[in-house]
């Protein structure tokens, strides 16, 4: 009672808000439960779905293989499934501070090699699958992983360049970062998908997935560079002076003294950028790659399942939410540990 009086009805304004919110919840929650659970159709039959008032989860049940694996050959779905589990496993493994040792790089190299073998095949009696047919969740995860793995070192160079004493390098880095941050990601993806092929000598082609990946890397590098620069700026000047006083050459000064501190400070904003990047991979849909969101959209195009977009996108939201929410929780825990 006392808790309620203090936390729900502490003043007339608070009381009004409480009552309004209770009314809103009362109006919203029961119909939502009806729609999502009680009246929902779980069997994969569009006719039953259309007859019902509730959500049509049958769509997900029917299409989950396509949504998760895209146009990957149906009989071989265990391969992207194994690759997905392996990749998520690698992420979780590297989230544990105990394993932050030099050999973690080796674990990643081995893991990525295994994923490459699983996805492409062509050895150990597994038929070859060209990467035009990759799709679904694994594509989203691979775009994120490779994007961040390559953009991160690049961004450190850019951030160092922006704070460099050499005017040309500084101008180039500032120009690059501001240019990329000033334009929408879509324009970069368009650039990779329609403009880049025009610049290649005839006969040379780079496949679409790689081109999109390059655009994502260029994009992420600029944003990460600003985060790293923030970290570099936050280090007390004394650290720079001390490193100078030890007469260390530039790269050892940077690698041994400045960067370890700068990156440690930047962990929370870096994690935020990682999450934003994971969400941004959904934009490859616009240039016609089959990531998780685009397989969902394509599945909806089938006439029988037309018109169940709300269910489909609720499902998509949940999948993305699970990934992003766990990343943000993890980053918060990391912050509190120190």
């Amino acid at each position: 009672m006392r808790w309620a009086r203090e936390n729900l009805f502490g003043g007339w304004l608070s009381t009004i808000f409480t009552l309004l919110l209770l009314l809103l919840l009362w109006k919203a929650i029961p119909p939502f439960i009806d729609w999502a659970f009680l009246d929902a159709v779980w069997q994969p039959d569009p006719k039953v779905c259309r007859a019902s008032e509730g959500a049509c989860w049958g769509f997900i049940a029917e299409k989950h293989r396509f949504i998760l694996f895209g146009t990957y050959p149906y009989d071989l779905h265990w391969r992207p499934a194994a690759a997905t589990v392996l990749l998520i496993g690698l992420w979780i493994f590297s989230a544990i501070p105990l394993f932050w040792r030099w050999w973690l790089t080796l674990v990643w190299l081995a893991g990525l090699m295994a994923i490459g073998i699983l996805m492409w095949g062509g050895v150990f009696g597994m038929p070859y699958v060209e990467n035009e047919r990759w799709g679904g969740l694994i594509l989203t995860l691979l775009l994120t992983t490779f994007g961040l793995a390559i953009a991160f070192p690049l961004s450190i160079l850019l951030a160092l360049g922006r704070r460099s004493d050499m005017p040309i390098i500084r101008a180039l880095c500032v120009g690059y970062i501001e240019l990329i941050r000033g334009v929408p990601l879509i324009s970069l993806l368009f650039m990779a998908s329609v403009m880049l092929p025009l610049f290649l000598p005839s006969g040379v082609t780079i496949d679409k997935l790689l081109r999109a990946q390059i655009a994502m890397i260029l994009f992420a590098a600029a944003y990460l560079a600003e985060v790293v620069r923030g970290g570099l700026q936050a280090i007390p000047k004394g650290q720079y002076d001390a490193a100078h006083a030890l007469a260390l050459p530039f790269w050892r000064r940077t690698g041994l003294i400045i960067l370890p501190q700068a990156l440690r400070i930047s962990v929370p904003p870096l994690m935020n950028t990682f999450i934003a990047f994971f969400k941004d991979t959904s934009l490859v849909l616009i240039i016609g790659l089959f990531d998780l969101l685009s397989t969902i959209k394509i599945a909806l195009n089938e006439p029988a399942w037309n018109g169940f977009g709300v269910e489909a996108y609720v499902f998509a939201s949940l999948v993305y939410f699970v990934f992003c929410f766990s990343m943000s929780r993890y980053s918060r825990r990391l912050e509190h540990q120190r």
Partner: protein
Amino acid sequence: MANLEERRIASGFGFLGREAGFEIGETAFMRYNASDTYLRALVVGLTNTLAVALVGVVVATILGTAIGLSRLSRNFLLRNAAAAYVEFMRNVPLLVQLFFWYAVITEGMPGPREALSPLPGVFISNRGIFFPSLFSGVPELQGFNFVGGTALTPEFAALLTGLATYTAAFIAEIVRAGVLAVHRGQTEAAHALGLSRAQTTRLVVLPQALRVIIPPLTSQYLNLTKNSSLAVAIGYPDLVSIANTTMNQTGQAIEGIAVIMAVYLTISLSISAFMNWYNAHVAFK
């Protein structure tokens, strides 16, 4: 260059003067028809981008401030509802949210004949949202759709809802951080002067918090403007979407992308310039 000649693709911006030959679904701010030039089509696209960005910024700011302040409320229910909103919105890609709103409007809403009418003269149907205006009167049902009044197309409504609700979550966090950055002593002093909680927030805390809030708020406005380019995915004819059509028709991808980038860079730089001026204006003197 040799590549372009080989593929018989023209170069240069000569195409801007030629006839575009495609219709645009949304021409609320400029008259346009298919026989107009590409340049005019692109300008129509730009006005559409600016329109959605401008309205989006206003709505997102109001909503974001309200939610940010709610997160600091002493009311348990309000505080947690706001926190849940922020958590959910920030962890789902904007593109998914846009598709969701577009699906809600086109699939979830009734047809024009059974349109919802929350206020007299306002109609919500799967053809968009119609409301009365001073110039074109009250919307009326004629045949299969409404005539008269001002209309928000489903594309505009979905894009605006998506952009505003998504960005509001980020703005809420900025507002909250800004308010928390104001020293506790300020609040206590205001209470000691006998100001009420609402007065303290309005007269003492917010003006000081504004200085912390403005720089990150600027980048959210820029993000919203850049994110409005996702319009292309749900068929709202913004600048990117029209430049995309232009590229497909003329094959002049380099020029098309140059136009997009130049326009967005100009917008980005002008918003930051304005915000820097404003920031200097409210800073401690």
